């Protein structure tokens, strides 16, 4: 069954000024199967958040079609809303003067959770995101990462089949982000469908069954974790300091090297085609007695250049 379907979805923000209207989604089509973790990867302004907001009925599309769990998000919003959990990150979206527990109790009431079940339905996500000990403190005393975890707990209150997670690990410390990944895997094992937007390529690779790359309001590619991982590894680079001219010349002669460039006066960057290329570059640098070096993961920009170049 298809959990999410969008066809030629457009969203235009009218500016009501001399500036041109902003096209956030430009004919975006996407299909997500039930029970999948679908990643949405893209730079700021690509249209990821707008897509999530249309699917979660916060925004109306300008044109096109979108459905969630078989329900049209425009005409059947009252069918969609009880079936989805939403996590929009950031400092906003919480009542700062209430405690974490009170925030969740309020949301439980808004999602028609029976009063007799509220305590269990609030305690469980609080424990799951590690906020039990701070649950009775006001949100205004929380760190950014704790607020992010409370957002996540709120998204779980509805016990929904479909979860929309918009940049859910922003502001979380590495331990909390790791626990979040475990939580996503647990939710997937329960058969829930998850739409996850992120900037973090490692997170997308680790969690998602499929990753859609979005740019300028359109899906430019969809990859499986395996092909995505290969793509990432193929864009790895090596950065090193203290290069001599003969080292640079030798590097350029290696078949796996696609480019050698100066990052600064002291630092050079070697881009390679594949993992084997990284090994060859490292071996050559050690032979040339270069000891200050590191491998570098590709940036989102590198990845997009690769994807757009291959289109």
């Amino acid at each position: 069954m298809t959990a999410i379907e969008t066809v030629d979805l457009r969203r235009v923000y009218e500016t009501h000024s001399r500036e041109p209207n902003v096209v956030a989604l430009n004919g975006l089509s996407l299909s997500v199967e039930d029970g999948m973790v679908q990643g949405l990867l893209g730079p700021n302004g690509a249209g990821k958040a707008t897509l999530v907001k249309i699917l979660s009925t916060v925004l109306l599309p300008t044109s096109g079609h979108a459905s969630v769990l078989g329900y049209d998000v425009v005409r059947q919003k009252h069918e969609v809303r009880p079936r989805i959990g939403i996590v929009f990150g950031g400092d906003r979206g919480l009542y700062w003067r209430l405690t974490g527990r009170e925030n969740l109790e309020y949301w439980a009431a808004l999602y028609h959770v029976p009063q007799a079940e509220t305590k269990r339905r609030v305690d469980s996500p609080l424990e799951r995101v590690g906020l039990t000990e701070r649950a009775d403190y006001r949100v205004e005393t929380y760190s950014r990462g704790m607020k992010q975890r409370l957002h996540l707990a709120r998204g779980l209150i509805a016990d929904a089949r479909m979860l929309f997670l918009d940049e859910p690990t922003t502001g979380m410390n590495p331990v909390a982000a790791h626990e979040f990944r475990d939580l996503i895997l647990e939710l997937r094992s329960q058969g829930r469908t998850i739409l996850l937007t992120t900037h973090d390529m490692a997170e997308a690779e680790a969690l998602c069954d499929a990753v859609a790359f979005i740019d300028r309001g359109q899906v430019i590619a969809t990859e499986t974790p395996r092909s995505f991982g290969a793509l990432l590894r193929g864009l790895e680079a090596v950065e090193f300091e203290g290069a001599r001219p003969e080292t640079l010349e030798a590097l350029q002669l290696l078949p796996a090297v696609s480019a050698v460039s100066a990052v600064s006066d002291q630092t050079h960057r070697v881009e390679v085609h594949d993992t084997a290329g990284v090994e060859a570059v490292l071996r050559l640098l050690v032979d040339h007695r270069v000891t200050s070096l590191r491998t570098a993961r590709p940036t989102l920009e590198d990845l997009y250049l690769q994807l757009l170049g291959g289109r």
Partner: protein
Amino acid sequence: MSDIRVFLYGLRVGWMQFTGFWTWSTWTGGWLLRIVAQATFFAMIGQLLDSPESLRYLVIGNGVVVGALAVNWTVPASTWDRGDGTYPLLVVSPSSLIPAVIGRTAIWLLNGIATSLASLVTLAVVFRIAVPWPSALLIAPLVTLICASVFCFALRLGSLVTRMPSARNVVHNSALTALMAFCGVSVPVAFWPGWVQVIANCLPLTHGLAAIRGVFDGAPLAMIASNAVWSIVVSAGWLAISVLTMDRMADAGRADGSIEFVR
């Protein structure tokens, strides 16, 4: 049942925010003292005119209108969920937006009732305005009715400014000016041209204030009841408009994207 729980949690949000502004001592020594001083200022015009009738008229009108002034804070308070970023989440929750908004802003209704009763009693004592007994017992329910009526009116204005939060202070103050000028607070409604009187009769303060004046003047119960009923009718009208348009205002924000804006 769920709507009641939503209302009560909304009320808790409003209360926690209110107590962030005021403590008991600052509410009494800051807010209430200033409000009573304002009402006293207008009432003293009657004393300066050496007219007991004018003094009585101004004491009652200004003792009551300060409650409307407090309740009218519902207008800007209606936009605070947008500022908090919780408004889009409330809109897309399975519950209606209405109990959440009424709950969050109801604290201003309670503040208005307390403010008006405290001011009216203080002014009546200071200026020695007698109230016939036992009809004096009607003052508290009538003040509550007036404040509830202003609250229903302010909810409608609040749902309008939710579409355009930058206009909240203009709308808030314009509404208050209209209530103070046209509803018989310091100048009788009959002073104004006919078309203004028609508008005044649709505003929330006019009939309730006439009922309270009836209590102070020892008017027949039927006259007091008639004005109270008209006040209920006007309140119900404003509440119906508020309820019918609140979701539409949210949908308009979903269409143009302003649902997410802070201002």
